[in-house]
């Protein structure tokens, strides 16, 4: 059998954690081979080893049948292995060509940099694979999808035969995802072999030939994608059967809690990111905001919570106008906010859990009296949340949050926000980067809030999550509301079209 890459029995240990423990994966020439696993299963570590960023503690790597030692990315390049990283490795102020040649520059006059001949080659490659990239554009001026193509060009420029794609669709629009899948098929047709790292079953079904599943650092098995159902692969990934549907009752919406009227918000570049957006949200329902990343969701949430000033329009909570109120005043009038970036916004990583759990109420009794913190009350509060939300950490309330896992950090935030008993709970990407167990737990908690009669506003980039949790779905594109649909009356295809900006065939009901 002719494998281009074989990784056999790979083990890699980091201080305190075994990231890879006996993983085996074999890549055939000319195939798209998916590497499937949950967040934290060890996919990225494994590929970093193949790319020479880490050295395995045990196991062998063979390329074209020969055993190799890949001590750094240069060696990987020479062996014809290239990688499109999840977080692009591009230097913003450099041009496309400069980024592509970085590290293997073309020279003139011995010391000089020869950009011209390189740019010509970039242009040729770009044409041949249908990538359509301007070699002289600066990275900071081109779209995310284009940037990804630059990453692909980087590999092609170095004559890579094996291409590794690390979660390549996370940042792309549905249209861009389709384009990318076309590009991948093209590459395989030209004789390249591809490893696709992902946790999205849909993508695997769409492009991959075979799939290796890993769980907690171990290989579970390799299957032919065509003969294996999504459910079967999901079960291999998680280790138990997973229901894709969340159990929930029909909603019974009550009075209007949040009323947004023609809200316009500028982003940090002073461009209108949200344009005349209107939405009503009722007690006892979950409304999901569906849209591709960067279409105004962040600005919408920041304008509701007071983190960003709105240009025009109104936001009412329980009939009371929020305009002009500070973040704190809005919190106090009944907004709970599970922020998009938990480590940047949601937590002070160097504070203990106890301290983090009073982040919004540290100055109120019983946690503060006469300007002095009240440790006993703070501890009691923390213990309550830690218990009722199953937050696990090394040393209980005294643990520094930085040392906790992502799932437990998120549970702490959700506990903190839910315990404040807000009328409106805003959850932005509440399950990003978490394992399936935590995801299920958080979903249950959100539905529980709805059933208690709270209004829940959910923003997620994962369409499945929006479809599973929401009672109604508001689709946003380029800062504008495309339409609002009932979840029971729509499907993925329709939403995908709306996310791309196409109006719903019939006029929205609301």
């Amino acid at each position: 059998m002719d494998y281009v890459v074989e990784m056999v029995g790979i083990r890699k240990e980091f201080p305190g954690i075994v990231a890879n423990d006996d993983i085996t994966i074999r890549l055939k020439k000319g195939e798209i081979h998916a590497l499937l696993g949950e967040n934290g299963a060890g996919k990225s570590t494994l590929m970093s080893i193949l790319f020479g960023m880490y050295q395995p503690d045990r196991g062998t790597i063979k390329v074209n049948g020969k055993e190799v030692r890949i001590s750094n990315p240069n060696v990987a390049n020479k062996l014809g292995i290239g990688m499109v990283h999840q977080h692009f490795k591009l230097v913003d102020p450099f041009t496309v060509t400069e980024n592509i040649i970085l590290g293997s520059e073309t020279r003139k006059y011995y010391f000089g940099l020869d950009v011209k001949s390189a740019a010509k080659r970039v242009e040729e490659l770009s044409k041949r694979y249908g990538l359509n990239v301007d070699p002289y554009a600066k990275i900071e001026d081109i779209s995310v999808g284009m940037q990804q193509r630059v990453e692909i060009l980087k590999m092609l420029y170095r004559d890579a035969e094996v291409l590794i794609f690390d979660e390549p669709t996370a940042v792309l629009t549905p249209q861009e995802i389709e384009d990318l899948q076309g590009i991948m098929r093209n590459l395989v047709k030209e004789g390249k072999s591809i490893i696709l790292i992902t946790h999205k079953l849909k993508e695997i079904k769409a492009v991959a030939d075979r799939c290796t599943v890993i769980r907690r650092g171990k290989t579970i098995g390799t299957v032919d994608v065509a003969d294996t159902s999504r459910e079967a692969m999901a079960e291999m990934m998680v280790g138990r059967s997973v229901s894709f549907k969340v159990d929930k009752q029909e909603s019974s919406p009550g009075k209007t809690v949040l009323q947004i009227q023609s809200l316009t918000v500028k982003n940090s570049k002073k461009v209108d990111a949200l344009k005349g957006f209107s939405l009503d949200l009722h007690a006892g329902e979950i409304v999901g905001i569906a849209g591709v990343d960067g279409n105004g969701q962040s600005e919408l949430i920041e304008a509701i919570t007071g983190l960003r000033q709105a240009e025009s329009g109104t936001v009412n909570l329980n009939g009371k106008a929020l305009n002009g109120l500070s973040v704190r005043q809005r919190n106090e009038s009944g907004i709970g906010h599970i922020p998009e970036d938990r480590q940047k916004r949601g937590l002070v990583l160097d504070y203990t859990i106890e301290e983090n759990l009073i982040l919004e109420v540290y100055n109120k009794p019983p946690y503060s009296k006469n300007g002095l913190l009240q440790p006993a009350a703070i501890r009691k509060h923390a213990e309550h949340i830690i218990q009722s939300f199953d937050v696990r950490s090394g040393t209980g309330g005294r643990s520094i949050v930085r040392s906790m896992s992502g799932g437990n950090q998120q549970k702490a935030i959700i506990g903190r926000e839910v315990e404040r008993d807000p009328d409106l709970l805003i959850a932005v990407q509440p399950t990003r980067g978490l394992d399936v167990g935590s995801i299920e737990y958080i979903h249950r908690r959100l539905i529980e809030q709805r059933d208690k009669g709270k209004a829940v506003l959910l923003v997620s980039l994962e369409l499945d999550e929006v479809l599973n949790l929401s009672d109604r779905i508001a689709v946003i594109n380029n800062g504008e509301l495309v339409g609002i649909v009932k979840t029971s009356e729509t499907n993925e295809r329709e939403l995908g079209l709306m996310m791309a900006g196409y109006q719903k065939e019939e006029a929205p009901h609301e």
Partner: protein
Amino acid sequence: MWTTIEQIFPYAIAYTIPLLITALGALFSERSGVVNIGLDGLMIVGSFIGAFVIFKMQAQWPGQSWVLWVGLLAAAAASALFSLLHAFASINLSANQIISGTAINMIAGALTIFLARNITGSGKISITNGFAPFDVPWLSKIPIIGDLFFTKTYATTWLVLLVLVLSALALYRTPFGLRLRSCGEHPHAAEAAGIKVQSMRYVGVMISGAFSGLGGAVILLTYSGEFTGNVAGLGFLALASLIFGQWKPLGILLATLFFGFATTVANVSQVIPSLAVFPPVILKIFPYVVTLVALVIFSKSSNAPKAVGEPFDSGKR
């Protein structure tokens, strides 16, 4: 007015040059991703070693001018070596670069005087003569330009200007420059492209050290003539020039010229009637206040290398 300008021009240039070379060195360091707040200390080391070497050699070979060049070279080498302390702390140990730089300043300030006292007792080292200013043949005869740029010039001025041109070429027209800059902007991208980020940063810091050493020695060999244990805070002014010049060679040239002129004007204001109308304190604090204003203006669109000051940890992605 014209005669005033003509008079102060050579002084202003002489004052600009050490600033320029030091800021230029810092450009390499910061472009590679390491903040170097220890410029002042590195200049002091250059000034000390330069003075020491020349002091000893002038006793041996009095009146020889090649001795001065040896002193310059020794100063650059010594400061480059000294800068390894900063490189090691910030690159290998991921130490706080500001603290490490501050330590460099403090060590240089204390240690050089300590050593100088062991040598001379007073803590000052004087050299018998430095570079003599000269008029460039032919060019100094050109009207206006000749008077301004080519009279009473120092050899080191031309050397530093040459270094400026070479540095700009190296940074923007060679693979080395592309790699160095990528380490300061996005070290993980550089690493993925097979560049040894840590080595590049070492190179950046050591160039900064060598250039600062030159800067300190140029002060000694042009207008001060003795080592006194400090360089009047010029290292900090060089750092300000780097920011004011927005991390670009030409910008740095203009910024250092600005500081050179502003400081010279303040220094001579009392003897020049047309300037004496300004209170001297205003002229003295002028450059610093302008820097503060510049910091505000550039705060929106800074060209600072994105990863400058951040330790590089290849595990973190």
